[in-house]
């Protein structure tokens, strides 16, 4: 170690002290969260909801794909059938104390029924309250996908042609 490097090291230390000092006058990076509400982009993955189609009917057809794909197995549902043969879920529960907000259920869902919304304020004092039932999961709107209606694009024709009779567009890649 020679004199030159000692002096050089000394001034580098002084420089880093000075740079830190300058940060005193900078903006603070911290956001004061509860006072200043935070903006999360619409595709942020927070609470899971069940949406309705543009006609106001439940989108979910109880295909169980979301339940299968869920890595922590926190979705449980049971299929049921109405008198026309259309499937719907008899019960639909999501255990939010286990959900990791991965969004895989949203990707798996063919009807775009299950969606994640940017709401992360889910904490609760009672663990049991984190088991959301269908009533609390369902929202009245269409969520992110406004126009999409599963039966406009596909689905087998069911008894009595009850709802939609638009034929399948074979040139379209959409489900």
């Amino acid at each position, binding site marked *: 170690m020679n004199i030159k490097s000692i002096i050089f090291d000394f001034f580098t230390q002084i420089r880093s002290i000075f740079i830190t000092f300058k940060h*005193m006058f900078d903006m603070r990076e911290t956001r004061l969260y509860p006072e200043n509400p935070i903006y999360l982009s619409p595709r942020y993955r927070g609470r899971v909801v069940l949406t309705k189609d543009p006609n106001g009917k439940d989108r979910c057809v109880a295909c169980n794909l979301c339940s299968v794909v869920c890595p922590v197995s926190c979705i449980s549902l049971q299929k049921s059938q109405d008198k026309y043969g259309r499937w719907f879920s008899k019960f639909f529960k999501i255990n939010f104390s286990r959900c990791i907000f991965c969004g895989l259920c949203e990707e798996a869902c063919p009807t775009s029924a299950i969606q994640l919304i940017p709401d992360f304020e889910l904490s609760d004092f009672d663990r049991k309250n984190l088991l959301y039932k269908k009533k609390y999961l369902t929202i009245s709107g269409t969520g992110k996908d406004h126009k999409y209606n599963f039966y406009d694009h596909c689905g087998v024709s069911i008894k009595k042609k009850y709802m939609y009779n638009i034929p399948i567009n074979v040139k379209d890649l959409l489900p």
Partner: protein
Amino acid sequence: MTSINYNFINIIFCFFKTLFIVFIIVFCGAMLSFIERRVLALFQNRYGPNRVGWFGLLQIVADMIKMLFKEDWVPSFSKSFLFILAPIISFISLLLVMSIIPFTDQKFIINLNIGVLFFLIMSALSVYSILFAGWSSNNKYALLGSIRAIAQTLSYEVFLGLSLMGVVAQSHSFNLFDIVYSQKKIWNIFPQFFGFITFFIAGLALCHRHPFDQPESEQELADGYHIEYSGMKFGMFFIGQYISMIVIASMITVLFLGGWYGPYLPKFLWFFFKTFILILFFILLRASLPRPRYDQILYFGWIICLPITLLNLIFTAFLILLY
């Protein structure tokens, strides 16, 4: 009879004055832990604790409550006498130095004519607190931390004393009052610049401030020598560290920055102001410098700081002989 009475009143008065000053110092030490967190956050573009009370001012009360109600546990495998003794020494040793510090020429506790030596004695004694804490805890991290602390403190103690000798030689006295009087025209920081730098570094090493916080490096040693301590015993180490920070800062003020001298403002304010600026600088150092390796610290001490101190001392002696 009257003289006895007078003496008695005098003693009572002195007692309460001392108690008051001790209280103030301990309170400042406790408050510093809050101030440090806020200022550190300011340097790092954060907010720090700002929830409890006005601007987080009551954070210290919250900390106190938490610490007081923690289980004060003496591990069964420790040597309990030394284990309890260590935080007391850590708390007391540098607090005692406060008694010799002249806040102004009227406000002080004792005017000791070996003031500088007393400071050196007490700083040497403070090593024992870490030695006892590390050894009696019977924990390998504590032991490693205290080994580091002792090696570091012993090697920095050498030029902690030597860097002061230039100041002492200039004022021809070990008395802190005489040292401050000798700085009436020019502060010692200018003629004794290298003494100032080395004393500053050694002082940092003495109170284990960053970047010399080897003994309690949280990342590798999980808090070093006070790992087994909890409750108020830990609190004593914690506040003791801030008190030693205050002591070092006020020693630097007295020895190098001209004590209470300064224009316009009252003397006490000048002293307070200088000490506070120094403490802020300590915090700035903590925010900006990384911690060097253990061997680098010893190397830096012996190879760079000691020769600078000796050269400074020889140069000062030469100048004094010349004029």
